[in-house]
């Protein structure tokens, strides 16, 4: 319990250890802590910047999607209009065609009727002539009618 030279020894030891700590321990460790703090602060700032950029991008994306949607709607509308127009056009063409076909069929039918009528007419004439011939052949008196027949032949 006496106070003796140990006091001086301890004082010297303390000076040495404090000097060592001040020279070789404190600066590197604190330097590293501070460097890491700086890095963390930078990282947080970068993260915040990134978040802000993300928000901005999201707004832009929303805007672009909206625009695209509007354009798509316009395109669909145009396509519908065009389709309707095409259908209308086709309907018009088809009506015209139908009328044309109907008309030509009508004309053909009339032609056919006329031809049949002519043919019939010719046949009726032949039958009439044949009938007349048969009637005439029985009743005609070649002698009495010679003059008339000759006159007829002359005319032919």
């Amino acid at each position, binding site marked *: 319990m006496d106070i*003796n030279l140990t006091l001086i020894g301890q*004082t010297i030891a*303390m000076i040495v250890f404090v000097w060592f700590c001040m020279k070789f321990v404190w600066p590197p*460790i604190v330097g590293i802590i501070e460097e890491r703090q700086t890095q963390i602060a930078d990282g947080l700032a970068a993260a915040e910047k990134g978040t802000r950029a993300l928000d901005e991008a999201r707004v832009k994306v929303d805007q672009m999607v909206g625009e695209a949607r509007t354009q798509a709607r316009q395109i669909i509308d145009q396509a519908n209009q065009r389709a309707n127009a095409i259908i209308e056009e086709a309907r018009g063409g088809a009506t015209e065609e139908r009328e044309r076909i109907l008309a030509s069929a009508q004309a053909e039918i009339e032609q056919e009727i006329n031809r049949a009528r002519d043919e019939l007419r010719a046949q009726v004439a032949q039958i009439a002539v044949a009938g007349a011939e048969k009637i005439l052949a029985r009743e005609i008196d070649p002698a009495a009618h010679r003059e008339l027949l000759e006159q007829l032949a002359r005319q032919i």
Partner: protein
Amino acid sequence: MASEGGKTASEYIQHHLHNLQVCPTEHGWVWNHCAGNPLGINVDSMFFTIVLGGLFAWLFYHVAQRATVKNPGRLQATIELIVSFVDTSVRDTFHGQSKLIAPLALTLVCWVFLMNLMDLIPVDWLPTAAHAMGIEYLKVVPTTDPNITFGMSISVFILILYYSLKIKGVGGFFVGELMMNPLNPKDLGLPKLIWPLVMAFNFILESVALLAKPLSLSLRLFGNMYAGELMFILIALLGIWQLPLHFGWAVFHILVVTLQAYIFMMLTIVYLSQAHEHH
């Protein structure tokens, strides 16, 4: 343990509280008969204090050399935690610029903590081992030696004086700080005639306050650790009952060990920051 080596309880306690000493006498260097010799050296205290200080210095140096900014290991993280803790304590209390105070605080807190921690080694282990090696006395906890605590507190006191004189100047320190407080004759409006009287009174008061700083700093640490060590020794005398009691006291002592180291560091910072402040 009471009957170890046929010693009485009193002899056992005496033996445990005896330092291993060496001192020069007219018969040359003598071991352990140094009571009252101012040139004696407490070999055990010096040994443990240097070993523990060296352990602190080596460990922190080791980590400081290998420290990386990215991917700190567990050891590095722990060391950084301690360093940040000290750094924060210093920054909170001390507002000046000093390259010395923070490393000083770190050294003191770690060193005192390690020295106090020796108290948790069961009291008979190291002395018995030393006895087996032929060493008669061994006091394991350096902070139970007032030489050690005074050695540190006097160094702090010298720093207090140095910074006071450096920051305030000789006049500022002796007259401004020690004589014009706490009763300032100028503020009290006293006649010039009785100023010296008031100043002398102040000087006595402030000198006591100043000298009390290193004294209380070292005696607080010494007293706490000495009492704790004594309790451990007394508990060790109790035979089988020492086991639960020793455990309980050791758990409580962990608190004392840490707290005393922290208080020693904190008061050092406070005293040095006071030395830097102008009134």
